[in-house]
């Protein structure tokens, strides 16, 4: 039972990281990236490629890289690779496109990447994918397999905390504030000298890098990775979490992941499967996700936790304020 709990919590931590990255793109900057999961996949593949050695059975599995490096290097490489892909896709999709067209373009470009990876066995193992991904630090730490799961959970939680603090810092910075202004009203942002394209591109790349980092953690956690793990539908699961928890609120998205990915998804696992319909439980998750999105958007669009507000606390420095009291009433 504890084993199961540790496993769920690790998933939640990793998805929390992914959700924060998606929140940077959507919650902060208003960009609807429908292929976010692709960036996670790039991080997973590259990180796995860096940490794996050459394949044991070359006739069954082929892939590039195989550099047998430590996890830290692999994760860094995965993060950077995802960022580079973000630069390319963002650079194409962000040029003067309406928000829904932008979304469709991201989805289409993601499909192309999916095809390239799935069809090319030599790249990252094609449909077979990668497996036997080494566990970070397993060879140097004297832990039993059970202890190791706790260690890895700790690693993921620390990573989540790090990503969260980074996000919180940036949210309040001029950078984050400008992004939110762009989300609210792009034209006004341009009228006040902000290079909207450049801001959005940076936010897109930042979100992609966080996705890549999450992907590296996921690949090492599961030990294997293949196209089944990053179908387009996975992005929607993340969106459900952040819509639910509160777009724009970093803590909120973690809450959303906890509720949706943690509680609801796991709950559907326990519903007795319908005989003859093995996909039904998974499908139920999809139906619930869609329902949650529509209900939230209809009744509580800001999500469970509202966006944190700036509060300027200092007192006045000038004296002309009697009219100020009037204006406030």
């Amino acid at each position, binding site marked *: 039972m504890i084993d199961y709990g540790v496993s769920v919590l690790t998933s939640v931590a990793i998805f929390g990281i992914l959700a924060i990255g998606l929140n940077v793109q959507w919650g902060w900057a*208003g960009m*609807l990236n*429908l292929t976010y999961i692709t960036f996670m996949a790039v991080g997973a593949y590259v990180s796995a490629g860096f940490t794996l050695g050459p394949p044991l059975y070359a006739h069954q599995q082929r892939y590039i890289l195989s550099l047998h490096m430590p996890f830290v290097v692999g994760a860094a490489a995965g993060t950077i690779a995802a960022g580079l892909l973000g630069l390319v896709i963002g650079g*194409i999709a962000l*040029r003067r*496109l*309406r*928000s*829904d*067209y932008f*979304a*469709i*373009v991201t*989805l*289409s*470009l993601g*499909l*192309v990447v999916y*095809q390239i990876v799935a*069809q090319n066995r030599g790249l990252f193992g094609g449909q077979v994918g990668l497996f036997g991904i080494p566990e970070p630090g397993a060879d140097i730490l004297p832990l039993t397999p059970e202890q190791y799961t706790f260690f890895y959970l700790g690693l993921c939680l620390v990573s989540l905390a790090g990503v969260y603090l980074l996000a919180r810092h940036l949210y309040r910075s001029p950078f984050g504030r400008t992004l939110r202004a762009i989300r609210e009203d792009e*034209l006004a942002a341009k009228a006040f000298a902000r290079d909207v394209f450049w801001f959005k591109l940076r936010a897109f790349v930042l979100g992609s890098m966080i996705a890549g980092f999450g992907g590296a953690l996921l690949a090492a956690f599961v030990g294997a990775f293949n196209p089944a793990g990053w179908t387009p*539908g996975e992005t*929607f699961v993340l*969106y459900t979490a952040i*819509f639910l928890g509160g777009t724009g609120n970093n803590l909120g998205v973690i809450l959303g992941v906890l509720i949706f990915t943690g509680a609801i998804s796991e709950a559907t696992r326990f519903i007795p499967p*319908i005989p*003859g*319909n*093995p*996909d*039904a439980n*998974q*499908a*139920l*998750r*999809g*139906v619930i*996700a*869609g*329902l949650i*999105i*529509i209900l939230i*958007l*209809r009744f509580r*669009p800001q999500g469970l936790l509202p966006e944190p507000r700036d509060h300027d606390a200092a007192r006045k420095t000038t004296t002309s304020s009697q009219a100020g009291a009037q204006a406030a009433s």
Partner: protein
Amino acid sequence: MTVFMHSVGFGLVTASVIALSAVALSLQFSVSNIPNFAHGEFLTLGAYGAFMAQLVTHNLFIDALAGGAVTAVIAWAINRGVIEPFMKRGARITVLFVVTIALSLMIQNGLIIFFGGTTQNLVVPSYSVNDVGPFRFTVMDEVIIAVAVAVMLAVHVVLRYTKFGKAQRAVADSRELAGVTGIDTPRVVALTWLMAGGIAGLAGVVIAFQGGTFDPTTGYTYLLVTFAAAVAGGIGRPYGAMLGAVILGLVTEVGGAYLASSYKVVIAVGVLILVLLVRPSGLFSAPDRQSI
């Protein structure tokens, strides 16, 4: 040479299917100003509708009608029950679009729950192959092309010569102005969704008849190429969508014959992105003026 001509032939059949789907999408977009991400599901629903009808009769004509009718009603209901309430509250484009994504999720997964995720079979007669000029068609291929042409003509007649068609064009042009000139805009929108749903459902039926099998994701796989065709023709413009469908159908089939079949997706994406970035108002119109 024969490879080329045969792929052109396939291209025409594919174009016919895409045309049905893209015209439906364009009609719906013209009155709602959002691309319906659940559009693929309309195709799938059509196939399932025909499948259910086959429990009663194997008359393909009736099955097809059933598929189209079921989808038409569901489309109407979605507009009435989900889209319009959001629009009344002044929801932004992004929000509406996300709502259609959520609908797509619900319908696709709902179908999996009800029918199972495995492929379903339709009872269709086996098709003999004819050589029509340089092309090689099965009887079903010919029927599909004929159906597509017939529907295009019907749409043209409705848009051009009926009172509803004129009202529809007015609403597509400007929702506010149409309302001011006495047109019952909500009714026109509802009927347009009904029409679009019916045509999309028919597209799904036709796809299922041709292949003989389908599953809950069948329609979704056509979403991208439908969108590409509609955009290429100038989204919101049914006539443009027809032309866009021909282009997409031919380009993807011919390209797919010479490159690998999986490259069809890449080709469709390429066309879509090129059009959106270079000629956003479609290939057949004047260069888009800057929008503020």
